[in-house]
């Protein structure tokens, strides 16, 4: 099969590959400015000292709590979101720091993010299509399951 050309892939889009790459870089840099700032690094150190079973609660109580963040001098910049999420592949994710791309790019990629997970062994999370494209758990169900030390891979959505 002949590889698709850049011109064909971007035909009909109001932007070029370079435009998309530039916007992604700009918004990733905003995220990196935030998560590499000393207060956020200190926050991640604080989280790393607690048990992986307690981290979902810490995320709920601190990462998703503006007052708790302010107590730690963590100021979330405008446009940046801290959110919980869940993947179809059931990797034990804790939270993500996300920024939407400008609306004109949303017909392909909508957002860029850096995702923070509980520890896992890469080989234990499948890349198999049938596993990765299952319905994800709800983030709160997943958080509770992680706090109880449950195997996420075994949990189904219905």
């Amino acid at each position, binding site marked *: *099969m002949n590889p*698709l*050309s*850049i011109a*064909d*892939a971007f035909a009909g*889009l109001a932007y070029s*590959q370079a435009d998309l*790459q530039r916007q992604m*870089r700009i918004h990733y840099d905003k995220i*990196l400015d935030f*998560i590499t700032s000393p207060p956020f*690094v200190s926050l*991640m*150190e604080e989280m*790393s*000292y607690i048990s992986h079973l307690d981290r*979902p609660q810490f995320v*709920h109580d601190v990462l*998703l709590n503006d007052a708790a963040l302010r107590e730690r001098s963590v100021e979330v910049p405008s446009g940046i*979101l801290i*959110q*919980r*999420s*869940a*993947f*179809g*592949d059931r*990797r034990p994710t804790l939270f993500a720091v996300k920024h939407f791309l400008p609306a004109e790019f949303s*017909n*392909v*990629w*909508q*957002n*860029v*993010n*850096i*995702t*923070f*997970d509980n*520890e*896992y062994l*890469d080989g234990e*999370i499948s*890349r198999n*299509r049938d596993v*990765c*494209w*299952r*319905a*994800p758990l*709800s*983030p*709160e*169900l997943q*958080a*509770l399951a992680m706090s*109880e030390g*449950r195997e996420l891979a075994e949990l189904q*959505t219905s």
Partner: protein
Amino acid sequence: MADLEAERRLSLKMEELDRERLVVKHQLDRERLTKITGNLIDTITSPAFVERMRAFRQRAAGGASFSEAGDLMSLENLRAAGAEIPDDFRLTSRVFEDREAGFRVEFKPPSIDDLRASTGGGVVAWGACAGGGAATVCGCAGGST
């Protein structure tokens, strides 16, 4: 004797904390994260990836199933379409909690089963997520239905 044991435990604890601090410092190293995200951007803006993601977004707007999403966005199908994808890459369905709407269930319900029965709100929509980089802190990009 008891003092010596307490001192030994404290010393071990301090060493453990130092190790954790180094791990976080490495994970949140700016240069490392810039490289990871740069590689991710190169991968997901390739022609084959853009064409598939664009088709996914169009199909998802009409209510695509997870199976249909897998047809379009599986690693094997993207590679077969000519996309160059690193071995450590992941492509998966994903949902985000809708914090903007203020929805957040109590963290400690009576049981997982109760929570499973009560949930349904709080998630905006599901979508596709492409991610690269080492486990625990990785770069991702996505689009939802």
